[in-house]
C-alpha cells in the first residue's frame, strides 16, 4: 500500500476507485459519525427528521386540495410519495456546498480520496431516507392502497438511481464550492426554482405536452415521476421512463465525477 497520488484528469482511474475502496472504513466511520452527532443527544431524534418534512407535506396538501385544487384522489398520498425524495436530494446538495470547508483541516493534512466526505454525507442522509420511506410505505399501504402493490418491489432500483443522481450532482457542487463561496448562496435559489419546475406538488402529466421534452431535461423530474408511479399509483412505470432514468442517472454520475476528478488534486491547497 502506498500514498495517494492520483494523476489529475477528467477520467476516473481504477486507482482512484482502489483508493476509495481502501478507505471504505473511513466512509463507514463518517456515516456513523454523521448519524451519531445528529441523534445521540436528542430524545426525539428521528421524530424531528420525519416531522419537519411532514409538516411541509401537510401545508402543501392543505393549499393544493382546498385553495388551488389539484384533482387527484388521495392527494396527500401523492405529495407524500414525492416530497421526501425531493427533501433528501435538497438537503444532500446543500451539504455539498460546505462539506469541504467544514473538513478543511482534514483535507489539508491527510492524503485520502476526498470524495469520501461527499459519499459519507450522501450515505448518512440515504440511511435516514430509507427509514422515512419505510414509514411512508406503511402509511400508503394502510390508508391509500389497502394492499401491498407489486410495484413496491422496484424501490431498490429507484434508490440506486437516486444515489447515482445525488452523487453526480453533489460532487460538482462541492467542487465548485471549494473555489467560489457564491455557490452557498446561489444553490438555495436554484433549488427553490427547481422545486416549482419539478413534480413535487403537481403531477408531471399536468405539464403541457409541448413543454414536456424540456421539462424532463431535469433528471429530478423523472425520478419523482418514477416514485409517483410505483408508490402513489402503485403500477409499474413505463419501460422508457425507467431505463431512461437509469441511463440519465449514470450519465449525471459519470459527468459529475469527472468534474470532481479534474479539480480534486488542488483541494488540499485551497480549502
Amino acid at each position: 500500500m502506498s500514498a495517494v497520488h492520483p494523476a489529475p484528469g477528467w477520467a476516473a482511474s481504477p486507482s482512484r476507485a482502489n483508493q476509495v475502496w481502501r478507505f471504505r472504513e473511513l466512509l463507514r466511520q463518517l456515516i456513523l459519525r454523521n448519524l451519531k452527532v445528529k441523534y445521540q443527544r436528542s430524545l426525539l431524534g428521528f421524530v424531528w427528521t420525519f416531522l419537519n418534512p411532514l409538516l411541509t407535506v401537510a401545508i402543501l396538501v392543505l393549499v393544493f386540495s382546498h385553495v388551488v385544487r389539484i384533482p387527484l384522489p388521495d392527494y396527500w398520498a401523492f405529495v407524500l410519495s414525492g416530497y421526501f425524495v425531493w427533501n433528501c436530494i435538497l438537503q444532500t446538495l446543500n451539504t455539498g456546498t460546505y462539506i469541504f470547508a467544514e473538513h478543511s483541516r482534514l483535507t489539508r493534512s491527510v492524503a485520502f480520496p476526498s470524495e469520501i466526505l461527499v459519499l459519507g454525507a450522501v450515505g448518512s442522509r440515504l440511511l435516514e431516507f430509507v427509514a422515512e420511506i419505510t414509514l411512508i410505505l406503511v402509511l400508503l399501504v394502510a390508508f391509500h392502497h389497502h394492499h401491498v402493490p407489486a410495484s413496491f418491489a422496484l424501490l431498490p432500483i429507484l434508490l440506486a438511481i437516486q444515489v447515482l443522481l445525488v452523487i453526480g450532482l453533489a460532487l460538482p457542487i462541492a467542487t465548485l464550492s471549494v473555489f467560489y463561496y457564491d455557490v452557498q448562496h446561489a444553490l438555495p435559489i436554484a433549488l427553490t426554482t427547481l422545486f416549482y419546475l419539478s413534480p413535487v406538488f403537481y403531477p408531471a402529466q399536468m405539464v403541457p405536452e409541448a413543454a414536456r421534452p424540456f421539462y424532463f431535461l431535469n433528471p429530478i423530474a423523472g425520478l419523482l415521476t418514477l416514485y409517483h408511479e410505483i408508490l402513489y399509483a402503485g403500477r409499474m412505470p413505463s419501460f422508457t421512463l425507467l431505463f431512461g432514468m437509469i441511463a440519465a442517472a449514470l450519465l449525471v454520475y459519470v459527468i459529475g465525477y469527472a468534474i470532481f476528478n479534474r479539480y480534486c488534486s488542488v483541494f488540499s491547497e485551497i480549502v
Partner: protein
Amino acid sequence: MPFSTATAASSPKSSDRAVEAAVELRGVSKRFYYYEHRTSSLREWFIRRILHRPLNVRRAEFTLRSFDLRVGHGEAVALIGSNGSGKSTALRLIAGIYQPSSGSVRTCGRLTAVIELGAGFHPELTGADNVALYAAVLGLGRRELMARFDEVVDFAEMREFMDTPLKYYSSGMEARLAFSVAVCLQPDVLLLDEVLAVGDQAFRDRCLARLRAYHAAGGTLILVSHEVDQIRELCSRAVWLEHGVMRMDGDVDQVLAAYRANDSLYRSRGAS
C-alpha cells in the same frame, strides 16, 4: 510491495534504481499560485476587457525547487530550516497531500503522515469513537483497528475517558489520544510535522521511546522539528532546507552545527 508514483514532468527510470528507497523525490518543485489582482465585479470586468488589461494577475511562488531526496528503508531523517523554508510542503508532497508541480514522488510501503494532530476529531464524539475515526482517517481498516484499539488506549493511559465526549477533554488529553493513534499504527514510513511536543514530560518520554523502538524495528521516520534535542535523539541524518532549496544533507550533528552557525551569523548581522 506495490508502488505509486506521481509524475508531473519527468518519469523516473526504473532501470537505474539499485535498491528501492522508502521515499524518493526527484527534481520535485512545488509552486503555489496566488492572485495579486482578481477582477471581482462585472463593471471592472468590462472596463478591463475594453482597455485590454489582464483580468487576473497571478503570481507563482516556488515553495520547493528541484528538490531531491532519497530515504532508504529504516532511516530516520530530520527536515530542518527556518519557517517558510518548505519543510512542511516537502512533507505534504511525500504524503501525497500535494501534487508536485514538476518532478516525481515515489513512496514504498504503508505511509502515515501526521501533519496536524487529530485532524478529523469531532468534539461531540466519545474518545473511543474518535480513535476509530482517526484511525480510519489514517487509512486503517476495521480489523486492524480492532486489533490495535487496546494498545492505543493503554499507550494514551486514558481508558477511563474513552466514553467521554471529546469536548470535555483538555487540549493536552486530546493531543495525547491523537498521538497514541498515530504511533500505534505501525506504518512502514512515518511522517511527523512538529507534533512531538504534546502532553506532559512523562508522555513525551514515552513517545520518544516508542519512536525509537519503531525505528529500531526497521521503521522509516521523517521528522520536521525545531527541537534540537529531539532531532539528535531520533535521527541520524538531517536535511537542511532554505527558501525551498536544499542547503545541506548529511550527518545530523554536522548539519545541525552548520545550521546553527548560519543562524547565529544572521542574528549577529541583524544586531549590528
